[in-house]
């Protein structure tokens, strides 16, 4: 951490967090993603000038957990709201935190155009392959054959289509400065995820355009698995379908050490 720590303190709850315990189910990696964002805001010293935009979905209450200003957007519209904020407060740091139903389904138009415009925003995209809050319906990211409450016989690609790989799709747009996919299923990948989140915020801080980190995440409750089984599912089933990697990194940001 950049803040001096008592001699023997190795890790402490980040200052970017409020005291409020999260409402997430035990073992849900939303909490890990939150923590990484809070750590990065603290390490970059930007908590104070950051404005978050919460989605509709499990993260609808994200505004309770970060010690920053926050607004709550209509379902899928977070990138549009963030655009409105950033355009009138260009010196602030603005980020959206969105799930796959919110970003990849109803919010497709807003995310694609925020990226195409090269809005200086950072998007944290949680891909857990289903609509968590409403009880586990099929999302655009649901894997073929995966059972959900709205694909009870498993997602049939013939009638229900194929998963959308957002990081790959958005990387075709010139307005994008940084766009990568990471996973939260083990310590190594969590470390890589944090580095990516740091670089995404650095991209915004440097005015290098739109930045997004897609994070493969778990939904133990709706998947009907234990938290530990869920991590395994991510590693064995989601990573192959949603390859981890850097899909677009602007030259300027390649120089930055995180």
């Amino acid at each position, binding site marked *: *951490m950049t803040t001096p720590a008592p001699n023997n*303190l190795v*890790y402490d*709850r980040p200052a970017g967090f409020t005291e409020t*315990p999260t409402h997430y189910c*035990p*073992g*849900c990696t939303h*909490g890990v993603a939150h923590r990484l964002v809070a750590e990065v805001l603290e390490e970059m010293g930007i908590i104070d000038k950051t404005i978050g935009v919460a989605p509709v979905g499990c993260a609808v209450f994200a505004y309770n957990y970060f010690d920053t200003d926050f607004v709550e957007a209509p379902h899928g519209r977070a990138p549009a709201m963030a655009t409105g904020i950033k355009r009138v407060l260009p010196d602030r740091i603005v980020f959206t935190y969105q799930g796959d139903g919110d970003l990849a389904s109803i919010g497709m138009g807003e995310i694609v155009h925020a990226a195409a415009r090269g809005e200086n925003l950072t998007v944290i995209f949680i891909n857990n392959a289903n609509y968590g809050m409403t009880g586990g319906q099929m999302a655009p990211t649901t894997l073929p054959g995966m059972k959900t409450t709205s694909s009870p016989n498993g997602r049939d690609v013939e009638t229900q289509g194929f998963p959308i790989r957002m990081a790959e799709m958005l990387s075709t747009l010139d307005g994008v400065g940084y766009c990568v996919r990471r996973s939260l299923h083990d310590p190594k990948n969590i470390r890589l995820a944090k580095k990516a989140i740091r670089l995404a915020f650095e991209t915004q801080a440097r005015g290098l355009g739109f930045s997004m980190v897609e994070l493969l995440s778990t939904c133990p409750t709706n998947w009907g698995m*234990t938290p530990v089984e869920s991590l395994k599912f991510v590693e064995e089933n989601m990573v192959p379908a949603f390859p981890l990697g850097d899909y677009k990194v602007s030259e300027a940001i390649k120089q930055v050490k995180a």
Partner: protein
Amino acid sequence: MQVKGWIEVSDQYCKGCELCIPACPQAVMELDMTRLTPKGYHPAHTFKDGCTGCAICAIVCPDAAITVYREVSKPVPVAA
């Protein structure tokens, strides 16, 4: 001879999700079945010596419930 460390698990935040337990390289963590948190979870704890303060438990913790310490003289950068 390996460094000695220790952790504090917050009853306020721990939900007993067990993610830290298989993650611990020293395999010194488990749920404390003798206690319930105010929210009714069995919290994680170290049940024997061997913690090195590597902070991997904190890195995987979804609830930022774990504070990690180490017997050392100089500040150590956070692992994550």
